[in-house]
């Protein structure tokens, strides 16, 4: 996997570089601000970019704005936002254009190298990796809109894991149940949320986005 890293703290930038290289990924570039990120992606066309949200010069949301531009200009490159905070409005903006190839993780998650690496891989492959924090915030934000109220606690758990970007097998492993049980829950969620079965694979993403994403995509 070819990766570009944008992170202004040298300590973390070098740490990430080392961590990913250790796992056999190629770091095309490690930069420290939004403009350099756009330039690096334009040059290297990586599979995925890891982007810090607060970067120079204003230390507010440069990373997010750069990420939104990346999503528009280079749809083939996955974007994993990487931040010390989870902001609902940031996730909303990020998910506005769809959840494919998008991730938003707390920096804390890097402590679990295997999971972090897996999440990055999912985003690079066009999947989704949302931090449990993001998911719970979105849950809270969308609770008022109803729909979720009809879900059982177990179904809500499953939906949360779907929102994080897990597959049925991954969910089954996490919840220590059979794959069949997960399929049953997923089907029930689709029914309760009013998503009729169709041929497209996007139903999972739609389910997550339509009911968790503030944009109601």
């Amino acid at each position, binding site marked *: 996997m070819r990766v570009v890293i944008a992170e202004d703290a040298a*300590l973390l930038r070098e*740490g990430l570089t080392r*961590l990913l290289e250790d796992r056999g990924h190629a770091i095309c570039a490690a930069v420290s601000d939004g403009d350099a990120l756009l330039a690096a992606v334009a040059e290297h066309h990586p599979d995925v970019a890891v982007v810090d949200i607060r970067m120079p010069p204003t230390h507010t949301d440069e990373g997010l704005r750069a990420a939104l531009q990346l999503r528009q200009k280079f749809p083939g490159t996955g974007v994993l936002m990487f931040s010390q905070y989870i902001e609902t409005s940031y996730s909303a903006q990020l998910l506005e254009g769809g959840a494919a190839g998008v991730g938003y993780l707390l*920096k804390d998650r*890097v*402590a679990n190298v295997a999971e*972090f690496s897996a999440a990055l891989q999912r985003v690079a492959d066009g999947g989704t990796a949302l931090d449990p924090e993001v998911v719970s915030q979105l849950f809270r934000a969308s609770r008022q809109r109803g729909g979720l109220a009809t879900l059982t606690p177990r179904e809500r758990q499953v939906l949360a894991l779907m929102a994080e970007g897990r597959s049925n097998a991954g969910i089954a492993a996490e919840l220590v149940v059979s794959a069949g049980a997960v399929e049953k829950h997923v089907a029930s969620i689709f029914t309760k949320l009013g998503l009729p079965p169709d041929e497209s694979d996007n139903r999972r993403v739609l389910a997550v986005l339509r009911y968790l994403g503030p944009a109601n995509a």
Partner: protein
Amino acid sequence: MEEEIRRVAGIILGAPLTRRTRRELLYSGFGGLAGVAGFCLTLVLLTTGLTVSVSVIGTVIGLLLITVALRVSRRLGSLHRRLLRRLLGHQVEAPPRFQPGSGVLGRLDRRLRDRAAWRGVWYSLIKLPVAAVQLYAIVLTVFGLVDLTYPVDWLLFHNSSRGNLSPLAAVVPAPFGGRLEIYSWPGTFPAAIAGAACVVAAAWLARGISAADHALVRNLLGPSSMAERVSELERTRTLAVEDSAAALRRVERDLHDGAQMRLAALAMNLGMAREKLDDDGRPDNATVRELIDAAHRNAVDALADLRDLARGIHPPVLDSGLASALATLATSSAIPASVIADIDPRPEPAIETIAYFCAAELIANATKHSYANQIKIKIYTERRRVLRLEVSDDGIGGADAARGSGLAGLAQRVSTVDGRIDVVSPAGGPTIVTVELPLRA
């Protein structure tokens, strides 16, 4: 009844002999002279300034002259207040200090909208007739005293056997008017009586005009009206709110860039180390050790960051009093610093905190810019009402409250509790910064 009349007459006629009258006459003399000088200076500067600034080319010079006039007006104001205090013992508080703006235009704007200075200009203009009366009282006194001496003069100098010298002329100033020509000793009596009348009249004139002048000074040179006080409070409240918001932002930023970042790196190091240990049971000891070393370093750095941050929010040593807090601060200064403290009674905690951070900032400033060999910190209470902090160094000077953002920031913070800061720092040094704070916020 007769008793009463006698008493009143005694007061009226005895007035010139009182200490109070002497002080009022003295005040009339100096105040009158200062008034005339101030009037001329103000008038010349302002009219020239205004006239010149009418023409396009002269605007710059004109504005410059006007700002000079306004500066002078503040100086004159303090001169008049001081005369009033020294000679008559009337204390009139100074108006709020001038708050310089930033940038050339900002400073000009603040200067031109300096209401205290403009009120001072009014005072200088109105003062002219007052000064005339004051000086007249002096003239009256002088002539009166001279006339009073005539009977004695006559005996001393005109009592010669040859007798008929030219007549002695006595001038009695208006409103008693005219000139008396004296040919004989008894003839000097009317002059003496006129002189006494002048002296008595001058005493009461001086008393009246002093009272009037006092009222003028109080109204025009004293602290502003309630409305101005309110706007001053509004301004400083805004500063206080901004200051605390900025402080919180700074704390957040420090956490984000410091401890949080280091802990994230620490978590990353440990995560990687665990990965290595999990690796097919044959861990690469050297690498794991290196990762744990890095994690350890990050943990230590994060602790240091958090400690600095906590101390920046509230130095624990401050709980045991400002004196020991400043002593601790001095020992950690890069330039040798000494502390002299005499604090009684103890100020409010909020004031102590402000004083402490002022001292810290001033020491840091001196360390960064002054090239000094020695810093002296003096802190003491004055009249049990004011806490005064003096930080002086023997460095190169040239500190400017209007330019240095650090000093300007201090001035803002101090003004939120009605304190003031005074910087004396001529080029070549030494620098003395005085911070004055009330004991209660």
